[in-house]
């Protein structure tokens, strides 16, 4: 008789599940600064990392935290930080550095109310535009947004995989509900999950920004025999600064194009009862769970409602969203901010029918009944 391997089921908070996912993904460096509602991730990593040969360090601020994780990644070690809105604001300059210099790393943003100190302990989804446009310049934003604790675990691993694959910083955008809620999680073992490691160069001389068909250059760690230069200035294939217009244009476009070219390997979304829907709800994170309930309730009342949930907020599966909205007479976008992601939905599904937001910034989750009323309107 074959012995069935015992499944490792735990009852964890989203922040703890994030830490578990990071360890499985191979994260061995964490640099962070305490901030509600993300601090439990740093606490988890401070306890766990030295047990697995990794390193935890509490930096002096969020600017230092992102600097340290980018440095660690260049040294060849998978790295992560966790923060919330005010910390994300401080990190923005170096998120751009990571994108420009093409350094894989993971930034967890547990969203709280803003602007400024806002509401440190209440849920919010107010960073979805800051994640996309926060740093100056054009950059290939990738952000994943889990709706449950189990998904936090899985998407943390996925965030590392995408960062390593694309050679770029990836944001895991949670909200305070997903971070602090406790749910059942199945902690998969390393052998049962797909782990992606960055592509390394095979030959010398190594040019750090020489790319092939996938537009993603390989990246060795410092000290592994390939000496190279890294800068945030516009650079050519050698990694050294350039101010030649054609090379600047090529470099700036390529970091965007590499995401566009490989987006099908990155994009994820979920659809619920969208095949025949007249009313489409587009929701993400904890709001999507309320939306799913509202869609079910609407169906019980005979209203053909459906839910489209972007799992990668960026890049968004635009074609799938257009298809899901194909026969809809109304699109509803509930979000815990004053109307951010709706701007993207409007751009993608176009006009000709009402696209309405449900916006709430009172530190409370959006209720299913509120979404249901909007569906019924």
């Amino acid at each position, binding site marked *: 008789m074959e012995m069935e391997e015992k499944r490792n089921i735990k009852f964890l908070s989203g922040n703890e599940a994030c830490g578990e996912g990071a360890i499985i993904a191979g994260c061995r460096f964490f640099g962070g600064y305490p901030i509600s509602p993300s601090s439990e991730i740093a606490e988890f990593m401070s306890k766990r990392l030295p047990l697995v040969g990794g390193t935890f360090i509490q930096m002096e601020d969020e600017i230092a935290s992102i600097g340290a994780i980018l*440095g660690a990644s260049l040294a060849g070690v998978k790295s992560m930080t966790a923060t919330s809105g005010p910390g994300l604001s401080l990190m923005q300059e170096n998120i751009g550095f990571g994108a420009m210099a093409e350094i894989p790393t993971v930034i967890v943003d547990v969203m709280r109310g803003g602007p400024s100190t806002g509401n440190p302990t209440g849920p919010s989804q107010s960073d979805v535009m800051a994640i996309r446009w926060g740093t100056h310049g054009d950059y290939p934003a990738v952000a994943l947004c889990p709706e449950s604790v189990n998904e936090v675990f899985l998407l943390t691993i996925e965030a590392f995989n995408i960062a390593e694959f694309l050679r770029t910083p990836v944001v895991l955008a949670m909200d305070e509900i997903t971070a602090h809620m406790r749910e059942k999680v199945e902690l998969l073992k390393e052998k049962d999950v797909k782990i992606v490691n960055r592509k390394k160069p095979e030959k010398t001389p190594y040019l750090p920004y020489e790319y092939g068909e996938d537009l993603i250059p390989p990246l060795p760690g*410092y000290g592994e025999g390939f000496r190279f230069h890294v800068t945030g200035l516009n650079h050519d294939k050698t990694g050294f600064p350039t101010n030649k217009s054609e090379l600047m244009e090529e470099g700036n476009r390529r970091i965007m194009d590499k995401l566009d070219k490989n987006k099908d390997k990155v994009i994820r979304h979920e659809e619920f009862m969208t095949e025949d829907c007249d009313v489409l709800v587009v929701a993400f994170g904890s709001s999507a769970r309320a939306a799913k309930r509202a869609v079910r309730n609407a169906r019980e009342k005979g209203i053909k409602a459906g839910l489209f949930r972007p799992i990668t907020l960026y890049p968004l599966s635009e074609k799938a969203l257009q298809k899901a909205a194909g026969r809809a007479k109304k699109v509803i976008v509930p979000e815990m901010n004053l109307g951010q992601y709706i701007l993207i939905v409007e751009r993608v599904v176009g006009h000709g029918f009402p696209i309405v937001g449900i916006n709430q910034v009172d530190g409370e989750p959006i209720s299913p009944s509120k979404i249901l009323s909007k569906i019924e309107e």
Partner: protein
Amino acid sequence: MAVNYFNYLRKEKMPHIWCAGCGHGMIVKSIIRAIDKLGWKNDEIALVSGIGCSSRTPGYLDFHTLHTTHGRALAFATGIKLAKPNLKVIVVGGDGDMMAIGGNHFIHACRRNIDMKLIVYNNNIYGMTGGQASPTTLTDAKATTAPYGFLEEPFDVCNMAIASGATFVGRALDLDVPLMDRVILESFKHKGFSVVDAWSQCPTYFGRFNKWGSASEMMERYKQIIYNIRQKDQLSEEEKKGKYPVGILHQIERNEFCERYQRLRDSLKEKEEAE
């Protein structure tokens, strides 16, 4: 034996961007001589900088090099060193980089005592952006943002480092090549976080605005405001007033962070195995 500088320089990146009379190149040569003397291999060195004139150094040296954002060199370097403790991590930056925008990282790096070597190319001015006042601009000196003279008190890089917990602190003027060589070499030999306040002249901006003259005339001026730490006891308080000591100013032994962290990992492992 004479040092072959080209073993360490990226020849093809010459000429460098520094102005005629700038002292930065002299500091770079002292760094190279120290590395050569210690026999460090190019592949085991990570050289990290921020933004500014001095921060262009990594582009010219054939190591693992990283030109980060303004003020953040020590933060990036901390990640590199902790991730790969076998790398020799050298950090360079200017007075603006280290004492202004990166001041917080500077004091915390001193406190942590991670085995990294910091060299502050201190020329009392923001050169790259055109001669604005910096936190080490001397009181009353002129700069483009201090057209009537600098009304503030400057930071003393070394005092700041000592007060923050750096375990090796030294200062030298670029003019005094043997002393610069010795201070940088000893800082590299030191186990722990070291800070060298390496004085360099900026004839293009500081010299011109303050009518200090050519590079050599500027060096003479700087000579007037220093004294060797070895003469500390021979000189009266009056003679030392307003002057900066040069040489190795501070060296103590303290637990180094990477080693401490490794001991933690080892002890946790032992505990786990015992259970």
